């Protein structure tokens, strides 16, 4: 409960009146001016609100199902971002007021608390295995249900989403090709991962039928499809507010449900693939339920800033081995787990090799001053490392007392960061810069040339001509030109594959046979375009026209693989 003069944290309940007040911009104006980072946040908040309005309009206007899915997804993401920014603004304002109204003596904590450096956290190669019943997967019984899924990733107040992927029962895992990068993460970060899914109903003739007719029809259909139809009718007429959606004008269209979630922290960071458990959040009655295996596999890496950027630099004098009075002048740069000593300050920038490097890790000991030191040289720093049996000590001399102090400070900060970021400071983990997000691909039902060639933006023209030549080459094998009277449209679907080749959203390009479709849980997923169809099918256009019309089956064109 709230008491009058006592400041307490308030969590804004979603859909509550307080939240509506926020939306209308009526929160109490602070008496003090906003610090610059608040205006930045405010700007982001306004941007998200505008995006949200745009998404609502788009959703109301669009006609195609895929567009509606994308628009609903953007809406959900915008809503989540708005809520998190508002929460963050509220928190900052509270903290600000607390600071400025002064503290009681018992409240004041330690004066200068060391805070660990920020870092970049990147999650990539996300893969969620699915667990189909074998009757569904192998025999392809029943209608082909399809789902649209995507992931929402939240770290602090930053929310990012992955692309939306269409899933049906020919897929064994949901694989996201995105690299999601969060900057400004502390070592105590919590990366929350949420999987949202929406069921794609096949819009049949029932979509526009009047309600009584529809119920009659649905009750006379088979049990499971009738249940589905009824559920979709009910959901379409009800108000569309899930747990995340703020009260918006009732928009028809697909509804996303939270299917699973999990939270990852520093302990999960590793330079490799790891499997984590998912907490499943929906059950079978939920229309968007997907048979999830219950785990998610990903690569979570973190790069603390202390490892990638120099934390201190300056001129030092280093005592040469053996010669007590001989001090060489070097330019030292403290970066990551080493102190690099260059001959000149410019060498550090040009990438020259340093004269020597002193390792600084958890075992290193640093002392200011030195024991048997002649008077007049008090500004020394000694760094000791233990290599096996030996202990190697480097003695460095700084220019002034202030410089000594700042070097010591930098070293203490580095030790603190290393203790906080733990395994991330052993070695720099590689983060690949995420490729620019491709615009959502237009889903075409027929197999045209362009959809069957997955041309990466990095491919050069040679690769493209190779693919074309390969295609042309096989066609040249066909018999004499009078058969070219027949059009090249393939009349029959591939009859040889035991499973129906469902119209895949993006066909894979003619790869060699390889690429096993099922993955063991810890294997590295190969890079493949989303929506891999079950058969590694070369194009139907390659089939010689001779076979059409004369036989009912052509020569087999697939080489299926199945796990047993």
């Amino acid at each position, binding site marked *: 409960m709230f008491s009058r003069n006592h400041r307490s944290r308030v969590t804004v309940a979603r859909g509550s009146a307080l939240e509506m007040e926020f939306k209308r911009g009526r929160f109490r104006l602070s008496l003090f001016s906003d610090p610059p980072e608040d205006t930045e946040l405010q700007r982001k908040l306004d941007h998200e609100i505008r995006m949200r309005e745009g998404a609502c309009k788009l959703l109301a206007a669009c006609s195609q199902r895929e567009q509606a899915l994308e628009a609903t997804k953007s809406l959900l993401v915008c809503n989540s971002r708005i809520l998190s920014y508002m929460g963050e603004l509220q928190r900052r304002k509270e903290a600000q007021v607390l600071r400025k109204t002064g503290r009681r003596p018992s409240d004041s904590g330690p004066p200068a608390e060391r805070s660990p450096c920020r870092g970049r956290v990147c999650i990539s190669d996300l893969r969620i295995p699915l667990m189909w019943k074998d009757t569904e997967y192998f025999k392809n019984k029943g209608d082909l249900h399809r789902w649209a899924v995507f992931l929402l990733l939240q770290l602090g107040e930053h929310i990012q989403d992955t692309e939306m992927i269409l899933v049906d029962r020919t897929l064994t895992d949901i694989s996201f090709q995105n690299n999601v990068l969060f900057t400004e993460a502390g070592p105590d970060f919590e990366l929350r991962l949420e999987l949202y899914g929406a069921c794609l109903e096949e819009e049949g003739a029932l979509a526009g039928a009047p309600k009584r007719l529809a119920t009659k029809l649905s009750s006379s259909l088979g049990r499971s499809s009738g249940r589905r139809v009824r559920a979709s009718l009910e959901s379409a007429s009800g108000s569309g507010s899930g747990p995340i959606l703020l009260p918006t004008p009732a928009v028809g269209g697909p509804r996303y449900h939270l299917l699973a979630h999990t939270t990852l922290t520093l302990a999960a960071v590793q330079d490799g693939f790891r499997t984590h458990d998912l907490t499943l959040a929906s059950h079978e009655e939920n229309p968007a339920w997907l048979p999830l295996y219950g785990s998610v596999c990903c690569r979570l890496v973190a790069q603390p800033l202390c490892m990638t950027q120099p934390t201190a630099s300056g001129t030092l004098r280093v005592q040469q081995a053996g010669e007590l009075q001989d001090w060489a002048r070097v330019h030292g740069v403290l970066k990551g787990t080493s102190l690099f000593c260059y001959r000149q300050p410019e060498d550090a920038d040009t990438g020259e090799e340093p004269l020597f490097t002193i390792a600084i890790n958890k075992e290193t000991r640093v002392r200011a001053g030195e024991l048997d030191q002649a008077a007049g040289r008090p500004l020394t720093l000694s760094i000791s490392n233990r290599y096996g049996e030996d202990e190697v000590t480097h003695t460095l001399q700084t220019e002034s007392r202030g410089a000594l102090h700042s070097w010591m400070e930098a070293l203490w900060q580095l030790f603190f960061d290393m203790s906080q970021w733990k395994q991330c400071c052993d070695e720099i983990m590689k983060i690949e810069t995420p490729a620019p997000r491709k615009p959502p691909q237009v889903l075409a039902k027929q197999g045209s040339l362009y959809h069957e060639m997955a041309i990466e933006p990095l491919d050069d023209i040679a690769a493209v001509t190779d693919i074309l030549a390969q295609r042309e080459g096989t066609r040249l094998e066909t018999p004499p030109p009078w058969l070219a009277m027949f059009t090249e449209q393939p009349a029959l679907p591939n009859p040889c594959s035991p499973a129906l080749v469902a119209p895949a959203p993006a066909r894979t390009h003619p790869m060699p*046979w390889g690429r096993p479709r099922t993955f063991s849980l810890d294997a590295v997923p190969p890079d493949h375009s989303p929506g891999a169809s079950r058969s590694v099918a070369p194009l139907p256009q390659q089939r010689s026209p001779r076979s059409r019309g004369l036989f009912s089956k052509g020569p087999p064109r697939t080489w*299926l693989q199945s796990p*047993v």
Partner: protein
Amino acid sequence: MSYVPGQPVTAVVQRVEIHKLRQGENLILGFSIGGGIDQDPSQNPFSEDKTDKGIYVTRVSEGGPAEIAGLQIGDKIMQVNGWDMTMVTHDQARKRLTKRSEEV
């Protein structure tokens, strides 16, 4: 090795005993197969004779029952528990390997 119907086949055949592993409600062997008389044999990277429509092992999952038993990638499967695997469709082959009543 080319298989001419009607002629005796000369081959080195090895018997492998794989104990199925129970994973949930499934019994898995831990490998993947490719091929079949209804498949296109020219895409088979393991067969010497590209018209061979037999069943080949395309993948062995690490640490799985197949690997433990000594099955290797690229092996051709001739028989399973007495059932022939040289002239079967892909689906028939898969069914013969995934019978629930058999554990070995």
